[in-house]
C-alpha cells in the first residue's frame, strides 16, 4: 500500500471558520472594546446616574489602588477561600465524578442528588453555613465549594460516561486491561469535558467567593466594594468589581491553556 496517500488532499486543520481572517477579527474585537468603553465614558460623563463614574475615572482609580497596594492586598485575601475551595472542589469533584462514571453503585447513589444540587440555588445555604461555621475562612471556603462542586462532579461523570464506545472496543481488541483502558483511553477522552466542568466550577467559585464576602463579612474585594460604596467613592468601587471580573476571565483563560498543554497536544498548534 505505498504512495496511496498522495492521491488524497492532506486535509488541513479545519480552522479558519467561514474564511474570516485573524487580523480582521482582532481589529473588530478591539473596536468592540473601544465602543463599549467609549459608551461607558460618555454615560459616566453625561451624568446618566450619579452613581455611574466614567470609564477613565474608574481606570484611574484602579491604577491608584494598584499603586497604593490596596487592590493586590484585597486580592490576596479574597484568593484564600477561593483557591482553597476550588482545590477541594476539584479534587473531590473530579474524583467523585470519575467514581460515578465508572462504578454503577456510585452512579445510582450520586447522580440524582447531584442533578438536584446543580439545579438548586445553593446560594440560599449561605446563611445556614454562616450560622454553623461562623464568619471566618471555613464558611467562605464552604460557600465556594457548594457553588463549584456540583458542576465539576456532573461534568466529570458525564465525560466518563460518554467515552466513544469504539475507542473502548479498540482498547479491548488490542488487549488493554480495564485499568489501562481507564488510564489511557477513558480519562484522556474525558479530559475536555472534565476541564469544561472545571472552568464552569471556577466561574461559580468566583461567584461564591464574592457572595461570601458581600454576605458574611466584608473582606478582600468584597470589603473594597462595600467600603467604597459606603463612602460614595464610586470609581474605586467600580474598579474593584472590574478587577475581580477580569481576574475571573483571566483565570478561566489560563485554565484552558493549561488543559491544552497537559492533555490535548493535538490542539496546541491551532
Amino acid at each position: 500500500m505505498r504512495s496511496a496517500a498522495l492521491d488524497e488532499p492532506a486535509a488541513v486543520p479545519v480552522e479558519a471558520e467561514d474564511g474570516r481572517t485573524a487580523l480582521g477579527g482582532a481589529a473588530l474585537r478591539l473596536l468592540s472594546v473601544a465602543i463599549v468603553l467609549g459608551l461607558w465614558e460618555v454615560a459616566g460623563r453625561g451624568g446618566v446616574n450619579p452613581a455611574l463614574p466614567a470609564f477613565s475615572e474608574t481606570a484611574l482609580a484602579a491604577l491608584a489602588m494598584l499603586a497604593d497596594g490596596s487592590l493586590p492586598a484585597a486580592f490576596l485575601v479574597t484568593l484564600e477561600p477561593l483557591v482553597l475551595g476550588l482545590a477541594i472542589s476539584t479534587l473531590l469533584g473530579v474524583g467523585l465524578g470519575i467514581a460515578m462514571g465508572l462504578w454503577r453503585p456510585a452512579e445510582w447513589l450520586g447522580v440524582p442528588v447531584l442533578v438536584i444540587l446543580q439545579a438548586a440555588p445553593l446560594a440560599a445555604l449561605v446563611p445556614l453555613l454562616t450560622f454553623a461555621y461562623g464568619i471566618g475562612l471555613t464558611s467562605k471556603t464552604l460557600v465556594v465549594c457548594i457553588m463549584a462542586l456540583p458542576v465539576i462532579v456532573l461534568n466529570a461523570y458525564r465525560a466518563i460516561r460518554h467515552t466513544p464506545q469504539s475507542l473502548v472496543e479498540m482498547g479491548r481488541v488490542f488487549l488493554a486491561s480495564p485499568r489501562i483502558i481507564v488510564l489511557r483511553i477513558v480519562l484522556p477522552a474525558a479530559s475536555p469535558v472534565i476541564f469544561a466542568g472545571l472552568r464552569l466550577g471556577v466561574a461559580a467559585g468566583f461567584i461564591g467567593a464574592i457572595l461570601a464576602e458581600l454576605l458574611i463579612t466584608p473582606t478582600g474585594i468584597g470589603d473594597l466594594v462595600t467600603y467604597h460604596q459606603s463612602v460614595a467613592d464610586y470609581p474605586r468601587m467600580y474598579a474593584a468589581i472590574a478587577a475581580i471580573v477580569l481576574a475571573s476571565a483571566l483565570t478561566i483563560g489560563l485554565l484552558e491553556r493549561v488543559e491544552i498543554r497537559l492533555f490535548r497536544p493535538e490542539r496546541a498548534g491551532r
Partner: protein
Amino acid sequence: MQVAGFRLPASSSLLLWLLLWELVGRAEVTILLPPITAIAARLVEIVPTPSFAEALAITGQAFFLGNAIAILVGVPVGVLMGRSRIADELLLPWVNLFVSAPLSALVPVLMLLFGIGQTTIVTTVFLFAVWIIVLDTRAGVRGIPPSLLEMARCYGAGPLQCFFKIHLLAALPEILTGIRMGVIRGVKGVVIGQLLVSVVGFGHLFEIYSSNFLMEHFWALLFVLFAFAVLVAEGLAWLERRVDYFAAARH
C-alpha cells in the same frame, strides 16, 4: 443499577438519602439538620401563610420577568451573532466575559443604579440568564446546515421568513437548551439577588428565619425553592427532548 437481578429505578437512591437525613435529624447530630418529617410538617404549616404567599409572588414575578426579558433579548441577539460575522466579532468577547463572570460582584452596582428593590432583582435574573441563551442560540444557528437556508431562499423566503421559519425552528433544540440553562441560572440569580438585597421576597424570609435560628422553617423554604428549580429545569428538559428531532440534520 441492579441488585440481585432487580432493576432499581433511576432516582430511587433519593429515598435512601432522605432516610439517612431523617436518621441524622432524629439523632440530633447537628442543629443544622432537623428531621425531614419535621421539615415537611413545617412546610405544610408555612406555605398557606400570607407572608409566604407574598414572598412567593414577588420572587416569582422577578424570576419570570427577568427570564422573559433575557429570552426576548438573548434569542434575537444569538441569531444575529450566528448569522452576521461582524456582530459576532463585536459581541462575542463581552458575551464570553459575562457568561462566566462573578455576577454576584455586580449586584452592589445594580443596587446603586436601580435602588434597593424589585428592579435590581429583575436585572440580576436577567444578567444571570441572558448570556448562556445568547451563546447557545448562536451555536444552534451556526449549526444549521447551509442547504436548509439555501432551500428557503430558492423557494423565495425573505429575511424575516428565514428568521421565523428556518433559524428559530432549526436551532430550537439549542435555543431550548440555552433557555433551560438560563432559567437554572436565573433561579440562582433571583436567590443571590434577594440574599444581597435582603429586604424583598424569600431573601427577607431567609433573613428572618436564619437570624432567629428557625432551621425547620429555613429548610422548608429551601425545599420549596429547590423543588421549583428542579421542576422548571426538568420541564424544560422534557420540552427539549420533544423537539430534539428538529436538529436531525446535525446528528
